């Protein structure tokens, strides 16, 4: 097979290190990324039972600074739906960013530092989010795109703390979920946050891109005795889907609002004004015509994004994400269905290769792992 690099695609600082491992590479959001190393099921199980390492340096990071940190917080408060005024330094929070009509522009994690606020955004939305925060910034607010200079590694799995503890000055035993510490991992200054996208306990390590390889080597070396596995985007998707975490572009996009996506818990209508508040208020009052539901397949076939959901021959929804769940050993899906049909226990069909295949609405998440939520 041809080995020519597509010069349009970006590469993370860890590209050369990861290229030494046997892997399949694909373009993702403009980046050349590994989709699998040893195999999706293998990697999935490694994270569920042990510990895996992800290169997530393609994600975006946007720093917000003001004369006073309270100005930075206030700016973010006006653009995200969740209440970030409650954050203390060392704490972070999941939220969405909405358009005035309530459509979702991105889902983000907001990190509250002593002197500023940093948002971690999806790779596919990094440019757009930077512009959004800049365009809406009042006088005195600085919005800085830190994406290129920031590398991100995630260590996820029940053994993640065992592996990382001896390497870091951050006290992991006392580090609570959605909190972070600043310290060293080996000799590398890092932000270590207890966050992740797998449903297992784990950490996300942020550092300057110039130290990314050193950080990788430190963790990789220590990882030998733990059988640390490199994890690609394929398993990243099966893991998050089992845990029912939204993927921007699938469950959420500009044409979905947080209430129908079952993310009402990150919308704090009473916190004060923010972009989208009025529209979201109305949506909450009137209710939504459809809701995100979890489906487990009973008949054959794996549902995929865009497949029709039907009931007695009538279209009633659409699949947003679907896969084979290595933990449950059956196919599962998330999808929007007409309100009324979203309740667990209901029987629906997913149209797969032109034929209806029976599915059951189930309670979510499909799987609850070691995550310390």
């Amino acid at each position, binding site marked *: *097979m041809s080995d020519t690099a597509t010069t349009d695609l970006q590469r993370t600082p860890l590209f050369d290190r990861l290229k030494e491992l046997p892997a*399949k590479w694909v373009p993702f959001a403009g980046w050349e990324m590994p*989709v*699998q190393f040893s*195999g*999706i*099921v*293998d990697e999935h199980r490694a994270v569920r039972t042990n510990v895996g390492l992800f290169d997530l340096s393609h994600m975006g990071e946007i720093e917000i600074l003001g004369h006073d940190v309270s100005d930075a917080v206030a700016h973010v408060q006006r653009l995200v739906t969740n209440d970030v005024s409650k954050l203390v330094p060392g704490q972070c929070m999941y939220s969405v960013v909405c358009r005035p009509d309530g459509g979702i522009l991105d889902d983000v994690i907001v990190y509250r530092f002593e002197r500023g606020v940093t948002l971690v955004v999806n790779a596919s939305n990094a440019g757009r989010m930077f512009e959004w925060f800049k365009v809406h910034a009042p006088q005195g607010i600085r919005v800085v795109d830190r994406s290129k200079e920031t590398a991100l590694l995630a260590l996820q799995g029940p053994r993640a703390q065992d592996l990382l503890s001896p390497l870091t000055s951050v006290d992991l035993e006392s580090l609570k979920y959605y909190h972070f510490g600043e310290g060293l991992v080996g000799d590398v200054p890092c932000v270590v946050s207890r966050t992740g996208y797998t449903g297992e306990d784990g950490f996300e390590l942020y550092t300057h891109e110039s130290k990314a390889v050193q950080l990788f080597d430190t963790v990789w070396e220590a990882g030998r005795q733990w059988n640390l596995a490199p994890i690609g985007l*394929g398993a990243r*998707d*099966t893991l998050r889907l089992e845990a029912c975490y939204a993927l921007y572009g699938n469950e959420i996009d500009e044409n979905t609002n947080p209430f129908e996506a079952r993310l009402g818990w990150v919308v704090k209508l009473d916190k004060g004004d923010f972009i989208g508040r009025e529209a979201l208020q109305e949506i909450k009052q009137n209710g939504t015509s459809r809701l995100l539901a979890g489906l487990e397949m009973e*008949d*054959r*076939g*794996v549902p*995929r994004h865009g497949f029709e959901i039907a009931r007695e021959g009538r279209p009633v929804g659409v699949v947003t994400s679907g*896969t*084979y769940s*290595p933990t449950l050993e059956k*196919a599962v899906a998330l999808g929007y269905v007409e309100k009324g049909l979203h309740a667990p226990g209901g029987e629906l069909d997913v149209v797969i*290769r032109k034929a209806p295949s029976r599915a059951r609405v189930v309670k979510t998440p499909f799987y609850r792992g070691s995550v310390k939520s």
Partner: protein
Amino acid sequence: MLYPDELKYTPEHEWVRLDGTTATVGITSFAQDQLGDIVDVDLPEVGATVAQMKECGAIESVKTASDLFSPVDGKVLEVNTKLASRIDGQKNADFHPEWINQDPYGRGWLFKVELQAGAVTSQLLEAAAYRSLVE
């Protein structure tokens, strides 16, 4: 990657073992590698008529699904019942789609066809020709 010389191949990545009037069909090493972890197969029914290069089933992997094509004209004699979650509409308690990944030319064979009289096999690719197609 392995492409046994005694087999014939199609551009859709199936292999065929011709034995008199019986053809055994499967997918190649290349195909199973591209698919990744295979989790189920949709095989044609025994007795069904299959047509050359027409879709007759599907292979599901974790990340995608791929159509299965018949390399020859004929009637399905036998299917590998150990691979699929469902055979003739009945659930299979113990099935091993991973055999297709592990042993695509052996244990992972998919179905057998009784060649139709006058069935054409001359356009099927030799191993060398198939290899140059995929490498």
